[in-house]
């Protein structure tokens, strides 16, 4: 193949992607920043809303830890309030923070920039997606103020208790919760269509699927999972809403409540659990896959080395996504379902460890003999690997039916899922914010404050969740407001609980350092320049930082290579951006075997 560089349109094969598009042009401040159709502004709206509601859930976790560590010291935390805090904390963190932040926030910001598009393909629908998300958040918040308060049914909202008297928020609270979830699903579907079609149809010339950065792959597959999985949440929310309002009996069996026979009969509560976890397990990977993708890019960029096994990484993402749909009932081992199902689901669950371990090995092998720059994003990325492995290994315990039965509903489960899908993805969120903040604002975040934030968060979360495994082994149950005079729980467990609570307060306070850093660096941070990390992907090659509406100035970039040309042998600089043609790569000396073009 010749190595001449073509700048002439006619030299290129017609792109499988689209050319120029008519951009929406905002005319006023409101059009630019409020009712914006620019994916980057929508991304920031999504991210700020998600972080805002996430802080509410963080405060809830403090209140829970206050009760668990130092029982009965705070008067207003009654058993009902405690259950409401548990439920809202879980629901907000999983759906309204992590899902919205990874897909709505990072997805919106990074997909168009990384694939070389001017914007999402349907900007108007994209805008609607955000406003529906905001409506869902408002409905959720409204449930704090209705009589009875928000639902206290746990984040899983299992019927029949979720809609029976006696459960906190069993009237207004649960209705608002279900409606909010339905609105969220509709809003997400609008955004998700955008992400998928933009990746499929709006890639710039030369950006083949196999040249996409792994961040885009992760977000893309997570979006597909969400598009197929969220309907299950919608179906279960809708049917429960009908049980509650119209008196149908989809999930509600015949019941006697306070001596009265209720009008329900014949419904199947297990059906709800199946539907809920049919969404609920893919949800774990809706959060994890973008984290996997982002962490791959962070590690490769800051270790100055190409990602180990790119194709394997892509396939692992796909296989994890596929398998995540056939493991849902491992959340239901104790539900009384057919034991043979348990055997099937335990097998599929353990198989997921294979592609996941592949990814972990590839990250570690990427670090191996890399030129590691131990800056804040890299610290968070490495911390993610540790935390994810820790949380993943306890997943192997819980995936086995016989081990799960005694550990189910104990603090062990809480420790497991917080490590694997709470802390691990949040560490990636932080790493990603430290990494892309310079592109979003044009200024660097403060490195020193970043390191303080990192060490307190990393060590602190281990101080919270590591001891929690031991509490689980002792049989300390989850969701309990207080333990009373339970004999099997020794005094040491209570002091351990107090220690965990103190660690939780410290970690929470460390997040204020992060928020301070975000705010102050916006005004006073060191100017970042266009490409402070010397990264190869397209978002760092924009003519303006922060990128203007339309992203790439007059001409869309042309892509000649994958996203991981770091430390290419025989090349002067240690990285080659994706849009640099082979002929323009400055060679150090001609080395026959290390010809950078490879063509």
């Amino acid at each position: 193949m010749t190595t001449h560089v073509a700048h002439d349109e006619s030299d290129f094969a017609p792109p499988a992607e689209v050319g120029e598009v008519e951009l929406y042009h905002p005319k006023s401040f409101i059009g630019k920043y409020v009712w914006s159709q620019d994916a980057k502004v929508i991304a920031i709206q999504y991210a700020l809303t998600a972080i805002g509601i996430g802080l509410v859930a963080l405060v809830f976790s403090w209140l829970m830890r206050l009760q668990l560590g130092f029982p009965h010291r705070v008067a207003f935390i009654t058993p009902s309030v405690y259950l409401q805090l548990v439920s809202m904390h879980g629901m907000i963190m999983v759906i309204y923070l992590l899902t919205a932040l990874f897909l709505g926030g990072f997805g919106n910001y990074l997909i168009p920039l990384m694939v070389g598009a001017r914007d999402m393909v349907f900007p108007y629908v994209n805008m609607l997606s955000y406003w529906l998300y905001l409506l869902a958040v408002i409905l959720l918040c409204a449930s704090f103020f209705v009589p009875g308060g928000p639902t206290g049914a746990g984040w899983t909202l299992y019927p029949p208790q979720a809609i029976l008297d006696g459960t906190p928020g069993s009237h207004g609270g649960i209705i608002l919760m279900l409606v909010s979830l339905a609105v969220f699903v509709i809003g997400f579907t609008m955004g998700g269509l955008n992400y998928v079609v933009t990746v499929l149809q709006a890639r710039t010339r030369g950006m083949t699927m196999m040249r996409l950065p792994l961040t885009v792959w992760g977000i893309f597959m997570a979006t597909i999972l969400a598009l197929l999985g969220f309907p299950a949440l919608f179906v279960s929310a809708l049917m429960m809403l009908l049980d509650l309002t119209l008196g149908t009996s989809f999930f509600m069996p015949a019941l006697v409540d306070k001596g009265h026979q209720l009008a329900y009969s014949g419904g199947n509560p297990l059906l709800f659990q199946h539907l809920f976890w049919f969404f609920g397990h893919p949800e774990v990977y809706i959060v994890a896959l973008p984290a996997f993708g982002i962490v791959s890019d962070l590690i490769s960029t800051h270790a100055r080395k190409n990602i180990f096994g790119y194709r394997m990484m892509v396939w692992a993402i796909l296989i994890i996504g596929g398998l995540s749909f056939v493991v849902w009932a491992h959340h239901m081992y104790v539900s009384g379902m057919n034991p043979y199902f348990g055997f099937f689901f335990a097998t599929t669950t353990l198989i997921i460890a294979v592609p996941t371990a592949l990814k972990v090995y590839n990250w570690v092998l990427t670090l191996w003999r890399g030129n590691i720059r131990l800056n804040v994003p890299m610290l968070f990325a490495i911390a993610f690997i540790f935390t994810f492995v820790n949380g993943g290994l306890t997943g192997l315990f819980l995936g086995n039916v016989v081990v799960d039965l005694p550990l189910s509903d104990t603090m062990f489960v809480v420790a497991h899922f917080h490590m694997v899908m709470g802390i691990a993805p949040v560490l990636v969120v932080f790493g990603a914010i430290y990494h892309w903040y310079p592109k979003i604002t044009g200024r660097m975040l403060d490195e020193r404050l970043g390191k303080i934030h990192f060490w307190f968060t990393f060590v602190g979360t281990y101080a919270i969740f590591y001891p929690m495994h031991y509490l689980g082994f002792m049989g300390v149950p989850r969701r309990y407001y207080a333990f009373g005079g339970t004999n099997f729980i020794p005094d040491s467990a209570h002091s351990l609980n107090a220690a965990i609570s103190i660690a939780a307060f410290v970690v929470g306070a460390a997040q204020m350092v992060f928020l301070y850093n975000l705010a102050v660096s916006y005004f006073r941070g060191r100017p970042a320049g266009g490409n402070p990390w010397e990264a190869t992907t397209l978002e760092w090659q924009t003519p303006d930082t922060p990128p203007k509406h339309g992203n790439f100035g007059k001409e869309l970039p042309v892509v000649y290579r994958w996203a991981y040309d770091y430390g290419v042998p025989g090349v002067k600089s240690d990285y080659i951006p994706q849009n640099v043609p082979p002929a323009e790569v400055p060679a150090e000396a001609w080395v026959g075997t290390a010809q950078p073009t490879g063509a």
Partner: protein
Amino acid sequence: MTIGLVLISLMMGGIVWWLFRQTINVQPWVAQSVVAQAGADSVPSPQARVALWVFLGVVTSLFALFVSAYAMRLGGFSDWQPLPRPRLLAVNTALLVGASLAMQWTVVAVRRRDSRSVGRGLAASGLLTLGFVAGQLFVWTQLRAAGYFASTSAATAFFYLFTAVHGAHVLGGLVAWVRATTRAWREPDAPGLRLIIELCATYWHYLLAVWLVLYALLVSGELGVAICSSTPL
């Protein structure tokens, strides 16, 4: 849930096949000076068409889960009491088939650039679809008059649920129909008209297919799994 599982497996199988085609014999680490695409001579699909197919994937997942839920609710418990079969459903089905045919006829007309037939076709399909929606609402009134409410039994609940969710999707289609009709009215020669009508037709055929599945579930009383018995209403 087996139905949902099988369907999701099929969809994931499709994605795996597609990715296999993307990755086989590709060496992503090789830089190229000339940007060439495999199959570059194929015309790219319009974004809106891809988006519609992705959306239909989502809707398929939704209906498959509803049907899964129905199968599971039905299989586990013995309290299943079918409701009488509304005769009007057959008429409504015929209306929806007619609407779908009219849409297809409109597609043929717009490909021939026959704007008069396009207008007629759109009007016919719109009227037939509205007739379908009205018919479904009338079935609801009939059932309510006969004393079958959503809370009466699980069978009635699923009857109302299936017809309501399908009807909501039909109404959503009518929004697109209004946009297509306005466009056909104002600028019958607009280049985008053909695409929007083709997409409408795809959506109409899809909803007809979904309705036929739901209709089979509703009325196949002979199989002993139906929502409606063979007693006519």
